[in-house]
Structure formats: structure tokens, C-alpha cells
């Protein structure tokens, strides 16, 4: 995700890394390029202006550091400013002492409120809660029906009735109390920020249900209008956070920066795909490092932790660190990764993956073929592929229903992967990060140096 922004910054910063020191002219050039990049990513003009001003001020020698090269320093400044703009800290959800905790979703038409409501319910279930979905979108034809189907998919009860949105929302909360649900997620009709009647209606829904959290659902592809929309909703509803949807495509990121800056509330969740599982909390510091081309090892690790057998992970990290990552480990990794959703998503999170690879579009059937090949190997072969000679190769190809050139390809790719992992210090990064991210300045800057040496 956020590829264009990432690519552009990678381009600029690669050039920066080669420079010994930065003069005003260089800083001006960097700022110009950052401006183009941000505008292309639909970051709102006022936010761009603000951001550039802060970066300029801080780059103009004021905070010269002895330990960092000027290029590293610019990266650090841009990273910090992006992080600050993106949120500074993550969204924290505290459950109401007297349940249910009421969450209201609002937004423009087509932003993805209904899908987000169901995904949020699934997320609450994962947190051990018992959510009730309330369908208060009586405007769009079949919106309630859509919510019912999605609710069934994620295993959450859905309440709605064909009265009016305010009554539905109020009765929904009452219903939650009656049947003992501890979280209520209210889906509302999409509305234009400028439609006074509908804005009044959503304000009434809000007044009637007194939500603990009001989240604005924003399409990540939104352009400059994101700021106006967010401001208008914020004035009517007092938002507590943002759900950013459709971030699984290309060239977005602008809306996240803009809305956050304008509303002053964090992006709480991002929706990264159409499947119910493709929904996760948003980490601003991670996103900034992703924009800077650092990938997002951290999100990956957290995601891995959640849907991943920890023993297998620990073993793999151990072997990675020892430089002994075998085909057997690779096979196990593949199995685990398949649980986590499409590989394309995973790739975007890894640092140092070239753009061509990210854009290539992964054929998932390829993965099955790889699995078949590995399964046709003996344990010895999996542990040490160098023993695979011509006749073994033919046996493996026959056993997996592939050709010897397929087997050769896999072996070659695996070898390159091993080399890549060693050179990128990924083993070190994985091992360092541990089960939960520690906010340690030392750790961050050392991984940044690692990134620098890759280029």
C-alpha cells in the first residue's frame, strides 16, 4: 500500500544517501520533490505546506547532529514529521464501564461503512467481546441486507427495523442491553458533508445513542476533499478517530495524513482488503517508516503473531539468525503465510522489496507448485539443497508433477532469498523486534542505518 509515496521517497532518499553534506540548494530540491510526491499522493495542500515548512526549518542546520550524516538526518526529520502528522500515537479504545460500548460510524457514500462495521465487529469478537451490529442506513437500497449477510459471515448479530435511523439506533442499543451484548457498532447512511438535513439526522442518531466512539470512515483514495469532509463531520459529530478503507490499492496515503491533521484524531483502523480479516489497527509510526521505504516489519510481525504459530515463528527466527534457513523452514513459512491472507499484502509490508516485485502480482497457484516441489523432497534435501543432483531433480519433478526447470527455479530463488535475508539483516531485525515493539530510539536508528547500507 501507499506505493507511489514510498517509491518517490525511495527515489529521493537514495540520491540523498550518496551525498556527503547538504546545502540550501539540496534542501530546496528535496523539499520540491517531497512536495510533488505528497501532492501526487493526494495529501491536502494545506497539510503539505505545513509539513514542508516544518521540515525546512528543521533541516536548515538548527539541529545538526554529529552522529548522523546529513542524509540520515533528513530522513529522520521527514520520518518524524510524517509520524507526527499521521498521529503521534495510536488510537486507544477503552470499554465503557457500563456496557455496551457504543461505536458510531459515519462517512460519505461509498466510503465502505457497512463493510467496515462488519470488520470492526469481527475485530471486537477477536478481542473477546460480543458485538451487536445496528443497521441504521435505511437510505441506500439493500444496505441493511448487506449488513445482515456480512454480520452472518463474521458471526455477529445484526439489529435493524424499517422505522427511522434515530429509532433504529436507539432501539439497537436497548436491544444490546437486553440480550447482553457489550459492544454496539452502528452503521449509518452515507451522506454528503454539505447535506444539512442528513447531517442533522446523524447528529440526532448520535444524541440518541451517546456513542463512546464516533469514527469517520474515509476512502483512502479521496483527494483534496478529504479535508473538507473531515472538517464538516468533525464539526457535527466530534470525531474520535478515523477508519481508512481501501488501502490495498496503489497511490494513497494522502487522505490519512490530511484527515489526521485536520481532525486531530488518530487513524484508528485501516481496511486492507475485501476479506473480513483484512482490517487492522493503524500504527502511525509504522506507516511513516513504510512511506519512507523502510517497509513495515513491525506490522508484519504483529500480524504474524496473531495468526501464526509462535513456535514455528520462533524457530524460523532462530534459524534465520543462525543463517540456517532451510527449505523445510521455508515450507512451514509458506503454510503460515497462507493463513495470513494474500501474499501481495505481505510483500508490501516487508522492507527492501523492490517495486518490480511488489507490482508483479503474485500468482497464488505458484505457491502451491512450490509447496508440491518441497513436499517431494526428502528431509535431507530440504535441509541441504546442495545434495540435489540430476537424478534427484528428476525424481522431485516427477513426484511434484512439475518439470526439472521448475525445481531449478525454486532452488535458485531460494538461494537468492537466503542471500537477501543475510545481506538485509532481516534476521537481525526480526530478532530484535521481539514479540512487541519496544520504543527504543537506539533500535530504530540502527535499523535505519541498516537500510542505508542496502542502497
Amino acid at each position, binding site marked *: 500500500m501507499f506505493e507511489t509515496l514510498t517509491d518517490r521517497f525511495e527515489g529521493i532518499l537514495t540520491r540523498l544517501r550518496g551525498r556527503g553534506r547538504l546545502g540550501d540548494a539540496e534542501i530546496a530540491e528535496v523539499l520540491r520533490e517531497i512536495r*510533488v510526491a505528497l*501532492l*501526487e*499522493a*493526494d495529501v491536502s*495542500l494545506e497539510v503539505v505546506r505545513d509539513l514542508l515548512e516544518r521540515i525546512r526549518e528543521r533541516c536548515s542546520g538548527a539541529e545538526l547532529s554529529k552522529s548522523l550524516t546529513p542524509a540520515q538526518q533528513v530522513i529522520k526529520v521527514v520520518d518524524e514529521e510524517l509520524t507526527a502528522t499521521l498521529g503521534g500515537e495510536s488510537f486507544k479504545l477503552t470499554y465503557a464501564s457500563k456496557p455496551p460500548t457504543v461505536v458510531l460510524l459515519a462517512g*460519505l*457514500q*461509498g*466510503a*465502505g461503512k457497512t463493510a467496515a462495521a462488519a470488520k470492526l465487529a469481527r475485530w471486537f469478537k477477536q478481542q473477546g467481546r460480543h458485538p451487536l451490529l445496528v443497521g441504521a442506513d435505511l*437510505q*441506500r*437500497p*439493500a*444496505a441493511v*441486507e*448487506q*449488513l*445482515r*449477510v*456480512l454480520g452472518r*459471515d463474521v458471526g455477529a448479530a445484526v439489529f435493524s427495523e424499517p422505522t427511522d435511523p434515530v429509532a433504529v439506533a436507539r432501539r439497537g442499543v436497548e436491544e444490546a442491553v437486553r440480550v447482553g451484548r457489550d459492544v454496539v457498532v452502528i452503521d449509518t447512511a452515507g451522506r*454528503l*458533508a*454539505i447535506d444539512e438535513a442528513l447531517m442533522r439526522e446523524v447528529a440526532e442518531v448520535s444524541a440518541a445513542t451517546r456513542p463512546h466512539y464516533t469514527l469517520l470512515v474515509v*476512502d483512502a*483514495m*479521496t*483527494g*483534496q*476533499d*478529504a479535508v*473538507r*469532509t473531515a472538517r*464538516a463531520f468533525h464539526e457535527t459529530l466530534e470525531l474520535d478517530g478515523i477508519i481508512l478503507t*481501501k488501502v*490495498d*490499492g*496503489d*497511490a*494513497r496515503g*494522502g*487522505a490519512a495524513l490530511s484527515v489526521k491533521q485536520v481532525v486531530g484524531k488518530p487513524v484508528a483502523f485501516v481496511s486492507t482488503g*475485501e476479506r473480513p480479516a483484512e482490517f487492522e489497527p493503524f500504527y502511525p509510526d509504522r506507516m511513516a517508516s513504510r512511506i519512507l521505504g523502510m517497509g513495515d516489519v513491525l506490522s508484519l510481525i504483529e500480524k504474524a503473531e496473531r495468526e501464526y504459530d509462535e513456535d514455528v515463528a520462533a524457530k524460523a527466527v532462530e534459524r534465520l539468525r543462525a543463517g540456517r534457513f532451510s527449505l523445510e523452514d521455508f515450507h512451514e513459512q509458506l503454510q503460515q503465510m497462507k493463513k495470513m491472507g494474500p501474499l501481495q499484502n505481505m510483500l508490501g509490508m516487508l522492507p527492501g522489496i523492490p517495486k518490480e516485485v511488489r507490482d508483479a*502480482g503474485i500468482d497464488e497457484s505458484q505457491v502451491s507448485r512450490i509447496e508440491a516441489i518441497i513436499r517431494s523432497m526428502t528431509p535431507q534435501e530440504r535441509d541441504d539443497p546442495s545434495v540435489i543432483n540430476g537424478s534427484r531433480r528428476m525424481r522431485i519433478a516427477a513426484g511434484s508433477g512439475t518439470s526439472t526447470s521448475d525445481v531449478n527455479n525454486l532452488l535458485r530463488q531460494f538461494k537468492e532469498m537466503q542471500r537477501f535475508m543475510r545481506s538485509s539483516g532481516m534476521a537481525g531485525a526480526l530478532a530484535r523486534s521481539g514479540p512487541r515493539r519496544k520504543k527504543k530510539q537506539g533500535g530504530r536508528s540502527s535499523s535505519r542505518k541498516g537500510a542505508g547500507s542496502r542502497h
Partner: protein
Amino acid sequence: MAPPPEPASTAAPPLPPAAPPLPPAVVEAELEEELHLPEAIPEAKRPRVRERVGRARELFAAPFASIRRRAKIDEATFEALEEALLLADVGLPTTERLLTPLRERLAAKALGDDPDALLEALKQDATALFAGEDRALHRESDTTSVWLFVGVNGVGKTTTIGKLATFEKAAGRDVVLAAGDTFRAAAGEQLELWGERSGAEVVRGTEGADPSSVVFDAIQHAAAKGAPLVLADTAGRLHTKVNLMEELRKVRRVADRPPGKVTEVLLVLDATTGQNGLAQARQFTEAVAVTGVVLTKLDGSAKGGVVLAIRSELGLPIKLVGLGEGAPDLVEFDPEEFVGALFD
């Protein structure tokens, strides 16, 4: 890549043809007359871009108004113009493409000193981007014409089809709706409700069914009952999803088999979309040879300036504009009006 549709033998636009160029200070009544409205929709209720967007935009600072108030044209004027265009989502490359010739004219002292004249020149250049575009919605008389609606999630494909179906039925033409969005929960139900409203028949498959087969069935059904047009809905998909774009290619191939003939592939684009709209247009065009753009939700505060970039970089015509939730709120794209509203 699918071949672009051949020029249709008959181009009978179901919507009123574009109004001929009008002076900028056109009075509303005149314009209403230029739009040949169908009997079913009272003329007085036919919305116009500027009237709808006016409401939205009064609320925000009008960047172009401040340019008019400037005493002379200088670098700051151009910076203000650039900002105004960027704020309208026109994007940096197209903004520069529009402003560079004007800067040159300024340097050559061929522009005078009047910001108003500068704005007028800019408006003309922007409007000229849309010159010669084919805004007709094509159909072929001796086959079942198929209009395929494609786009990312949540842009308003189903709603657009519902509105067009209402229009076609009101004009006395039979139409069959193909519920080709078999992925999104209740998308079929949504189209079904539009079918009830408009009186158009809807052909549906089961949820998760192959969309190609649903479109195929709809074409067979339309051919059998002699309906000349099928409006085919498809599931919203991000243009970056290789397998989903592949699925869409198949839908198009199947829909093009006799008795069906794809005469329009309309990319539905949400006016709030930023520069990503360009990537969408590019990818969808590559996959299914888009013939035109439908710009929806222009009644909000977004100006939809990305269509300038789409037009100038990809040459796609903008065919329809959505100005509200009601069926009559879908109107033919009028460059003059659109650019006028963009620069308000």
C-alpha cells in the same frame, strides 16, 4: 487487451445531446432548453451542475475569486492559480500543462494585466481539453447492446445503472439489468430494488456465481424478449488486483459474444477521488477498453478535477455526471458547465 468497441452503427444517445457552446454568462432558462429532456422528467426538476455544486461550494473559500480580485498578473497570481487547480484535484502534471502556455504568453506580454482575462483564458484551455470527445452512449440496432459498468468499490455503479434504467424505461425503451456484482453482499438486492423502481427486469445469479454467466444469461434473456439493451453491473474492484481484473476481461469477452455486443464500457468514478483516479482509468482501460467515464457524486464539495487529467493524459471522454441520489440527477457531461463550476 480487449479491442476497443467498433464505432456503433447507430449512435442514439439516450440522454440529451451536449448543449452547444454557450457564452459563459448563460442564463439558466436558456440552458434548460438546450437539454432535450424526456417527458418523464419534468424540465424544471432537471438539475444542473452549477446549481448543485454551488450549494456545496459556497461553504468553502473560493480560491478563484481571490485571483479575480488581484490587481495584476505576476508570479503570485500563478502560484494562486496552481493552488486552486491542485485543490480541485486536477493534479500537478495537468496543472502545469495548463499553466505553462499561459506563463509563456505572460512572458511574451501577450496576456495583458487583467487577472479576469487570465482566468478566462485558463477556462477556455481547460474546456478545450474536452473538445471533440464522443459523449454519445452507443448502441447497435441489430444486436443486443451491452453497456458494462466498471470501477473501484463504492463509486456508485449500481446506482448509476438504476438511474439509467429509469431513464430508458421512461423513454419507452426496454432494458434488462444484469446483476453482475455477485461478490458484494446484497448488491443483487440493491439492483433488484432499482429494477422495481424503474420497471426494468433484473437477471441475477446466486451470490458468488461467475459474473460472466450472469451477464451471459441477461443477454440471452434480453435477446429472447427483444430488449435492445443490457446494463451490466460488475463488482467493485481495485484496479491493482490482477485476478479480479482478469475476471473483468472475461465478463467483457463473454458479453461481446452474439447476440450480445459491448457498445459501452463505462468507468464509474467518484468525484471525491484524487490522483488515484488516473491510475484507475489507466488500469481499467488497459483491461477492458473503457469507452467513457461517469463522474458521480459531483453534488458534494469535491470538484472532480481529476477528470481533466484523465482526459488530457488518456483521452477518455467524460460521458455522464451524477448530481444527486434521484434518478433525474444523472445528466450528460457538459464541459462548459463543468469547467465553469470548477473555477467558481
